[in-house]
């Protein structure tokens, strides 16, 4: 992978991420976050994680950010103009962020000598890696392409089948919880009247 593409999308991700934190208008923040997530999805795809990259765009840049924008429009929040910023928190937050970045750079310096993103030797994986005994996955690997979604599906439904069902239950509970939370308390009002 040409490294300038990596730097381009890293810049998109971090630049829009900075805009999320600094923008005064919440709508600008939400749209910047969506753009930042698109850049992050590109980074995922550059790591051969096609499925996760597409899921990132569909779920985050699509569903989650639309939800955020709905709420922002619903509440009709004005941009916080002329408001004094909390200087102590501002300095503390920036300092903590800079310290964290320095620490990450120092720690990840240990990985600089390691191998770069290289072409995968797909034919060598046939019959060895989990799921590659399936004919459809083995055929894709033999042709030299990485059947990312098929392997992901194999991992999810074979090794993590139970966890997948638990996550489904979690989504159901979350839906019920949201309905309960956003329901106006009509019963209490009637009792009061």
């Amino acid at each position: 992978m040409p490294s300038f593409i990596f730097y381009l999308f890293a810049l998109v991700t971090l630049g829009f991420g900075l805009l999320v934190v600094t923008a005064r208008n919440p709508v600008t923040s939400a749209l910047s976050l969506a753009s930042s997530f698109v850049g992050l999805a590109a980074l995922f795809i550059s790591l051969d994680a096609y499925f996760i990259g597409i899921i990132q765009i569909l779920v985050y840049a699509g569903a989650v950010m639309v939800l955020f924008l709905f709420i922002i429009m619903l509440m009709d929040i004005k941009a916080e103009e002329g408001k004094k910023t909390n200087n102590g928190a501002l300095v503390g937050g920036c300092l903590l962020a800079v310290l964290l970045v320095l620490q990450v750079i120092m720690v990840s310096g240990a990985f600089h000598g390691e191998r770069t993103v290289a072409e995968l030797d797909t034919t060598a994986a046939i019959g060895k890696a989990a799921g590659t005994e399936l004919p459809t996955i083995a055929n894709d690997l033999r042709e030299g392409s990485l059947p990312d979604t098929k392997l992901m599906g194999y991992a999810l439904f074979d090794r993590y089948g139970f966890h997948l069902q638990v996550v489904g239950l979690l989504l159901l509970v979350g839906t019920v919880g949201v309905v309960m939370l956003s329901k106006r308390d009509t019963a209490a009002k009637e009792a009061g009247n």
Partner: protein
Amino acid sequence: MVTLGHYLVVSGALFALGLAGVIARRNILIIYMCLEMMLSAANLTLVAFSRFHLVDHLPDYGAQALVFFTITVAAAEVAVGLAIIVALFRSRQSVDVDSITKLQG
């Protein structure tokens, strides 16, 4: 060429941006967006380690399954969290975290 360290630095910087936003900003919606950013930064680390730690010449799909679950849980968390924020806004008419002092001693 791009090494694992590059991805870790990008992920760490994104996490630090989110952390700075959570601490410095006072709008609860923006704090929530910064939390999402920090979650995504952790996802980038997981995917990077999955790609650089080859298991039988293929990326480690255990890590990517974990990312899948993280994204799902984060989506459920956003829905519940935003419902709480809307309920808070209904009772306070404000999204400023400094105005929420009911539990302050």
